[in-house]
């Protein structure tokens, strides 16, 4: 029995996400705003990659384009080898403002993802329960969103975004509106989930520390129009717990990236 990795090598190599000369311009003529790109980037399957940059640099724009929810002005995007020209239904997506609906409880909100896809959620009860447990929401399945704290809402939203077991997950600043302590705690749950299920994750953030802690690679995005200035491999052991975060190497990565943004005139 050979490790699964070996068979993966035999299969034709297709990157999870491939961007070639992708750019986005809003409007036309003299009013045109060049928002993003051109960008080339290859994201391998199972990677946790962060798009790190100041607000307004087009990170979210890129994410919507990968999801097929926004058309690129130029260039080509492929997900699992297929050109993206309509909304991809095989990905999980999550925004800064969560998509929990106020008329359904936590369990019902997670089931909504399945119901919209035409699945009967009753057949997936065990999966929903396991997901809730993995983000420490067991016992909250019957609660309404307004009964939960902001952090718990985002935890529930993670379950909603992951319940259909997508191979690719796009997270657009999912922790953006939370306080520092809650962010810290959800980060480690997110990391554990990723390590367990190994989906490809594209994570949009403007927190340097968050990007270094979670990512296998960090893409440093320049101010508008956003371009990927460089891609940094984060060579730190998993899981990135408190001990790793205390290490000199971790601090160096953070300091280096701070230096880059300082060079942009942002920090």
């Amino acid at each position: 029995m050979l490790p699964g990795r070996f068979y993966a090598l035999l299969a034709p190599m297709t990157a999870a996400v491939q961007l070639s000369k992708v750019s986005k311009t809003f409007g036309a003529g003299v009013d045109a705003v060049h928002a993003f790109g051109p960008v080339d980037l290859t994201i391998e399957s199972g990677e946790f990659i962060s798009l790190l940059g100041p607000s307004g640099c087009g990170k979210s724009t890129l994410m919507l384009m990968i999801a097929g929810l926004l058309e690129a002005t130029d260039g080509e995007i492929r997900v699992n080898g297929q050109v993206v020209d309509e909304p991809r239904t095989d990905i999980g997506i999550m925004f800064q403002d969560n998509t929990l609906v106020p008329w359904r409880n936590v369990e019902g909100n997670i089931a909504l993802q399945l119901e919209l896809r035409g699945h009967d959620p009753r057949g997936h009860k065990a999966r929903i329960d396991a997901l809730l447990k993995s983000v420490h929401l067991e016992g909250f399945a019957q609660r309404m969103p307004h009964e939960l704290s902001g952090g718990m809402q985002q935890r529930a939203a993670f379950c909603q975004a992951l319940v259909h077991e997508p191979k690719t997950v796009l997270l657009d600043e999912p922790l953006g509106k939370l306080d520092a302590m809650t962010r810290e705690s959800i980060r480690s749950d997110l990391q554990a989930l990723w390590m367990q299920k190994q989906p490809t994750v594209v994570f949009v953030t403007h927190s340097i520390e968050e990007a270094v802690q979670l990512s296998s690679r960090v893409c440093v995005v320049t101010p508008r129009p956003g371009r990927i200035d460089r891609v940094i491999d984060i060579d730190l052991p998993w899981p990135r717990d408190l001990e790793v975060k205390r290490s000199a190497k971790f601090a160096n990565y953070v300091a280096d990236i701070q230096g880059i943004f300082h060079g942009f005139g942002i920090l």
Partner: protein
Amino acid sequence: MASASSERTSLGPKWFDPLSRWAAKSWMFVIFFIGFFLFWEVSIDLFHVPRYILNKPSEIILASRADLPRLLEYTYVTGLEAILGYGIAISIAVPLGLAIAFSSILRRTIYPFFVSIEMTPKIAFAPLFISWLGFGLLPKVIIVFLVCFFPIVLNAILAFSSLSEELERFSRATGANWARVFWKVRLPAAMPQCFVGFKYAALNATVGATIAEFIGSDQGLGFYIQISTGNMRPDLAFAGIFLLTLLGLLMFGLVTAAERLLIPWHISVRRNA
């Protein structure tokens, strides 16, 4: 829902609890309300108000008891006009609001027309409808329909066209067809704003029916109030006004009950719970 019954503080039977809570919250209003009618009762004699101007509340009650059969019959007539017009307005305005929200052609034609007609007091059409259609039920129903239709349709358009960008994208990313997104996301998300229109229109309905009856009719509470005033019987006019108030309360109460039943999760319902 969230706060399960905390410790009981009163001693009586359990059904008494909501009543005592209400009393604790509203006793000041109750006293003011009773005080208002007591003041009215005594000031008629105190200020020597002639009876053809205004009666005491007690006299109004006695007079309306004497004329009760006719009052009840007319309440039925006016109530029927109001409820029919209101019901038809809802059943046409909501689908139309949905269509306008999603059709760019309707949004450029009917929608601006509706917005400009919103400035017209609809009740101004009442004499025309009476002259076209006579004294019967139909012109009143149409007038009630007119005063109810616009708030409902404008709120429905707003409701169906203001789904959050995130939910819109979330729905698209699931690949669900339009109908499924409509039933599972758009419709429930639109309900709170729709109810704003329903409630506003419920208040308009009795106003529309009353004024339509003022203009031309031979039955109904509006007719009754007008005739009683002409006969210098303010006591009977007040009886009619009281029943109109009850009718309005009943309609508004039914809509509010429907709101609590259909969207118990909404903040406006939770806050008043």
